[in-house]
């Protein structure tokens, strides 16, 4: 946006070109559920501010896309669900208010797995998004539309949400940067809840610097979200090129074990060599609880989802379905048939695992695994500055390939859920292309070390030159 700031191009021209790109490519990609018809008008307003010498926010009309589970006042927020097909958000999420103050422009709302439950975007009620590197392949999820929109130049950056890897997984599959901050660094006010105790909004961008720039706009305390933490207005861009010389990096062995694709393993070894070349010391480390993390993650998230989705009774939110002739419970059951298959399954799970007689076997054990995993990772961070692993242990797969096997899909999450269960920040950096499909490397840092994490990601990124996305 430097060009807009310097007056070399107007915000209107820039946003018009972005909308043109969306019109050209999105019919095939389906990154967007809605396009903001006022985006170009909004850009004109910013041009007026620039010309009249008024203060202009740091975004200077930067076109940003927003995952469709984040509320923008007076616009549709569907969560890619038929249940919320016509829901108009009555308020702005805190992240939206902050970006508006900085003169960002929202070009549209992006596709996701229904209520962010999934990791391929195939569970959207409005059809899947497609991977811009190969249209037959999934883009990852649940923030698949957001990652596609960044990868395919349909915007400069996007906001997604990450409950078990939903920012990092699609970023890895689409060859862009995806960042899950320390739990509490970004307000969740206005994010439609799925699993409150572990989810975070996170930026997706083409570069680590763009990611840090967006983080500067949206991080910090919010009186509307009492889980937010004071980041003392840190500038995440300042010193981003500091490098990682002398830093100690642990390679998590449980994340490069059984089931890892050989191309992903090879990329991970190459990334380790790059880190060593940058002056870091790399050693293999163990996080024993990782092998139980996916089961713990799904148990906890299903439980919280079961509670959060109870509000969708078609009285407070919903679609046109007359109440006459129904008894209270049967009306709600009938109305909930609009939920898609994955949401329905997780609601049933969410009723089962914390229920009387089963809570001790599932939910309480999951909480204990979460706690022990946190203790293990805290121990590692006493000795190491960063931990690394491939973001996803497999390459992007074909649309439809795993959709009927929920347990096979579970295992795709194995390297990402740890950051959510422990609250640690983690970032996926695009690193290699194998058979025309991207591979991302994930870096973890200790809580509140988001700034040094971005520096490490920038250092790795500086060693990489990927081909242009073939769209």
């Amino acid at each position: 946006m430097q060009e807009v700031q310097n007056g070399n191009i107007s915000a209107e021209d820039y946003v018009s070109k972005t909308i043109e790109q969306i019109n050209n490519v999105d019919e095939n990609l389906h990154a967007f559920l809605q396009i903001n018809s006022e985006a170009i008008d909004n850009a004109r307003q910013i041009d007026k501010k620039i010309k009249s010498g008024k203060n202009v926010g740091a975004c200077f009309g930067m076109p940003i896309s927003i995952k469709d589970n984040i509320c923008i006042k007076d616009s549709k927020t569907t969560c890619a669900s038929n249940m919320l097909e016509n829901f108009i958000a009555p308020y702005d999420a805190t992240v939206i208010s902050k970006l508006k103050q900085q003169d960002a422009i929202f070009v549209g709302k992006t596709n996701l797995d229904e209520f962010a439950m999934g990791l391929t975007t195939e569970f959207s009620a409005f059809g899947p998004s497609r991977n811009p590197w190969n249209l037959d392949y999934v883009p990852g999820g649940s923030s698949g539309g957001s990652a596609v929109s960044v990868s395919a130049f349909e915007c400069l950056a996007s906001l997604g949400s990450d409950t078990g890897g939903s920012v990092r997984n699609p970023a890895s599959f689409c060859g862009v940067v995806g960042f899950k901050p320390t739990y509490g660094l970004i307000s969740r006010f206005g994010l439609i809840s799925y699993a409150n105790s572990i989810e975070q909004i996170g930026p997706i961008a083409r570069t680590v610097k763009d990611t840090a720039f967006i983080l500067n706009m949206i991080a910090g305390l919010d009186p509307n979200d009492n889980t937010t933490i004071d980041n003392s207005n840190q500038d995440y861009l300042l010193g981003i090129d500091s490098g990682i010389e002398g830093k100690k990096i642990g390679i998590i062995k449980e994340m490069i074990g059984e089931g890892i694709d050989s191309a992903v393993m090879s990329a991970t070894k190459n990334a380790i060599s790059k880190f060593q070349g940058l002056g870091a010391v790399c050693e293999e480390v163990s996080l024993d609880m990782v092998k139980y993390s996916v089961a713990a993650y799904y148990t906890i998230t299903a439980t919280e989802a079961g509670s959060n989705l109870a509000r969708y009774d078609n009285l407070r939110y919903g679609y046109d379905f007359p109440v006459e002739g129904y008894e209270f419970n049967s009306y709600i059951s009938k109305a909930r048939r609009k939920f898609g298959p994955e949401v329905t399954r997780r609601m049933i799970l969410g009723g089962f695992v914390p229920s009387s007689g089963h809570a001790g076997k599932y939910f309480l054990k999951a909480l204990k695994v979460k706690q022990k995993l946190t203790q293990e990772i805290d121990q590692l961070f006493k000795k190491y500055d960063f931990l690394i692993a491939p973001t996803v242990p497999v390459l992007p797969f074909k649309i439809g390939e795993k959709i009927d096997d929920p347990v096979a899909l579970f295992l795709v999450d194995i390297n990402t859920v740890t950051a959510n269960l422990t609250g640690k920040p983690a970032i996926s950096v695009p690193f290699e292309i194998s058979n025309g499909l991207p591979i991302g490397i994930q870096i973890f840092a200790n809580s509140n070390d988001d700034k040094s994490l971005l520096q490490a990601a920038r250092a790795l990124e500086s060693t990489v030159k990927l081909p242009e996305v073939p769209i």
Partner: protein
Amino acid sequence: MVNEQEIEIVAKLMKIEIDDHKEYIDKVHAMIDYFDILDNAGVQDEEISMKDIPLSNLREDKHIPYEDKLIERLNNYKGTYVRAPKMI
């Protein structure tokens, strides 16, 4: 090992009505079976520690005026009341 009847009861309690019964039951069953791996984690003796949130962290409990009449956005708002399904 959970059985189909248990899953059906939970679906009913969660107010979920499903068409393709067998498909849902089979998939939910497979998911719950996978969760049995938690039995091997050796965490039985772990004590779950809770994090206290001091009252001072919560925002003040006071009325904040809001310009929109949110009630008018409800599907079954009839001008002076909301029509809900009968309770009995």
